[in-house]
């Protein structure tokens, strides 16, 4: 079986061709890079994806509209809440459904908790890939509290299936609000300690500053989104610039990369933007918990959902950038076509061009700074 991918690698005997993956401690899931290295320096890293392809989009056409909701959790299981909301919003736009205010607030609270949990994992695995194991465990310890809170809210720790078309599945259990506020008070102090432990550590900074710099226009041209885009200095956040749901009611600022310790758009900027975003998310949750309105938690939705023929695209600011659901319906109770656009997909296609001339250790830093998750790429 002539591997087409090998034909692209010129067989000069100088370089060593290395399979960096698919089972490799720092590829964040099952991704393979065919790496041509000359000693420590890379000539090129060609990504070879598809190991986790479950064709979720084909499943979307088989199970009915409500039945697809649990599958959206499996697209990005580290930040599953955003996938739920994206799909729910797309179908609501098709049905021209008005989601009640309380449901919008609950969605924001659940999303922002999930963003903190996802960033804790992203930031934690990055420190582990650079070599410091302890911060990862501190991050996961804080994430455990969030998992318990969301488990009390919707019954599951990672694949939540909390949103429904037209609203949310459950209301806040009693006593949840105080536990959440208590956690947020502790979490804001923890962020300061985390920064002092690892973010400003000289070795950590030297390993990430000025490494794999992605300038702003290149990031936009390649379609980078989310913290990767903001790390390159482009001031764009779907929650603020194309507002949806209850986000216009909350004040929060969008951290962008300013070349904290090196040039704008290097690995450290992408890393530190995630740290600042976590602080903003806890600020949003506090405002949302204070101004939570009374009312229904779901709109009236017919048991058998049959939207009229048409198509709709809904975009959501997920932890890994803008996640868009494009749903085409043909009037039956099954979606005709469901398309999921994810942040990691575009982050992957930039790796090949940015990785020229990096060292092996920097390729690891680049992959973890883009916070790439395998199921999001292959779906």
């Amino acid at each position: 079986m002539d591997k087409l991918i090998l034909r692209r690698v010129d067989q000069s005997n100088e370089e060593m061709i290395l399979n960096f993956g698919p089972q490799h401690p720092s590829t964040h899931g099952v991704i393979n890079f065919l790496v041509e290295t000359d000693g420590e320096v890379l000539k090129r890293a060609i990504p070879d994806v598809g190991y986790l392809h479950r064709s979720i989009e084909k499943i979307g056409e088989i199970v009915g509209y409500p039945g697809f909701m649990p599958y959206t959790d499996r697209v990005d299981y580290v930040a599953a809440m955003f996938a739920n909301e994206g799909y729910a919003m797309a179908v609501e736009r098709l049905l021209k459904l008005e989601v009640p205010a309380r449901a919008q607030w609950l969605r924001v609270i659940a999303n922002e908790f999930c963003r903190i949990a996802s960033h804790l994992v992203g930031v934690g695995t990055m420190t582990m890939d650079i070599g410091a194991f302890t911060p990862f465990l501190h991050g996961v310890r804080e994430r455990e509290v969030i998992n318990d809170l969301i488990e009390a809210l919707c019954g599951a720790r990672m694949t939540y299936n909390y949103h429904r078309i037209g609203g949310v599945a459950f209301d806040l259990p009693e006593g949840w609000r105080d536990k959440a506020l208590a956690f947020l008070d502790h979490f804001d102090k923890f962020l300061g300690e985390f920064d002092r432990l690892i973010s400003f550590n000289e070795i950590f900074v030297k390993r990430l500053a000025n490494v794999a710099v992605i300038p702003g226009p290149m990031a936009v041209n390649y379609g980078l989104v989310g913290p990767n885009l903001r790390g390159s200095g482009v001031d764009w956040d779907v929650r603020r610039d194309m507002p949806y749901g209850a986000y216009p009611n909350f004040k929060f600022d969008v951290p962008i990369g300013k070349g904290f310790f090196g040039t704008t758009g290097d690995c450290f900027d992408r890393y530190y933007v995630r740290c600042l975003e976590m602080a903003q998310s806890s600020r949003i949750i506090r405002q949302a918990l204070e101004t939570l309105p009374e009312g229904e938690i779901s709109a009236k939705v017919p048991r058998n959902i049959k939207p009229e023929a048409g198509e709709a695209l809904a975009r959501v600011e997920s932890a890994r950038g803008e996640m868009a659901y494009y749903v085409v319906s043909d009037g039956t109770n099954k979606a005709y076509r469901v398309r999921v656009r994810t942040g990691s997909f575009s982050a992957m296609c930039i790796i090949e061009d940015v990785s020229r001339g990096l060292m092996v250790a920097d390729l690891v830093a680049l992959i973890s700074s883009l916070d790439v998750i395998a199921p999001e790429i292959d779906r």
Partner: protein
Amino acid sequence: MNSKTQDLCAGSGKTARGVVLATLAVGFGLPLVLLAAVLLLSPLSKPAMLMAALGAAGVNVSGWSVTGQYVAWIVAIAVLALILLSFGAVISGMTVWWEMRVSSRMQSRVGYNRVGAAGFFQWIADAVKLLLKEDLVPADADALLFRAAPYFVLTGFGLVFVALPFGESLIAADMNVGIFYITAVTALIVVGILIAGWSSNSKWALFGGMRSAAQVISYEIPSGLAAMVPVMMSGTLSMQGIIRSQGAWPWEWHAFTNPFALAAFAIFFVAQLAEGNRTPFDLPEAESELVAGYLSEYSSFRFALFFLVEFGNLWVMSAIAVTLFFGGWQVPFVGPEAFAAARGVGDLPGAAWWGLQILSMLVFVAKTLVVLNVVVWVRWTLPRIRVDQMMTLCWKYLVPIAFVVFVATLLWQMLIARLPVSATVSGAVMFAAAVVTALLFFRQTRQNISAVGDRVDFTNW
């Protein structure tokens, strides 16, 4: 796991009394027995003392020819070497256990607590597990070299114990080239790692081997230079000599009696971290980049040997640092004349002498444990350095500063060390500065706890 076992949740996991006693017995008994053996045999390993001991034991030694005596001496040395090596293995096993306990606390985990009290037998369980695993040799690896590599590394580690000064006269061979011999012998370890990297026929191992070669060889230079500073201060290369030239009290240690010696210790410490492949220099077996570096193809017993040497090196590293800079086995209030008095006349020394030897050994072991804990602590805090940064750190920072410190100590010895008060003044000043820094550090640590709203809580060990 049906739910029956769920209901037996014993309160807070009190381990049975028998297990605690067994652990304490093994935990303290095993090293003490080995140390006692080292204690007993090392003085006897001198030919004169051996013959006296045999004579006292009733064997009429006088009839033996010179070669006979020589053979007896060789047997004594071989037994002593075997005991020293097993002492090294037991110590590295305990270092594994200690490091896992300390690192888990630092990561707010619980760590080993199931096998024996506080999980002390875990390292024995690991060793047995590694022995039982299958011994793989990769397909077209260089079989001979692949099998030989661990033994290179083991000899490099074992030979160092010959020159380690455990006590006042507890040293296998008090060579007058002590520190020079140790620096030379530890080079064998890098040969072993290189062979392991090359012969495993895997690209990751090759990477690991090359990185280790670059790292360990280039860090020999700052380590050697920094080791020269105490040698100049004490005027001799022999390990016992260096210790004897230091006093028992901290302000008499080499580290403090010369203002530049603390910088020399820092350089020596960093360079030894690099030579022991410890974080932040664990590039040769970087988990996140090279899967397991030169160790990727090794399994079971060979892997256990590499593992033993890696943790044994911790002990060797801190022992040398303590000998050179922190006054080795010097016991406060007990000067050399006390040892001579306790020695008494006659061939075999009196009981008091043995007691003093044990005391000096305990002081040496305590100081080594302190430095060892710093190495463990550094490992679980700092990230890993990149290959080119590692070289820059060595050639642009450590080597120049080592030269400066070397020349400064030279001038200090020639000009200022003449008048004896300078040593005590510098010692007192430097020691006071060290104490103040330590206090500031502990205040900062207390603030860290209250800053996050936690409170000091030593339960759930």
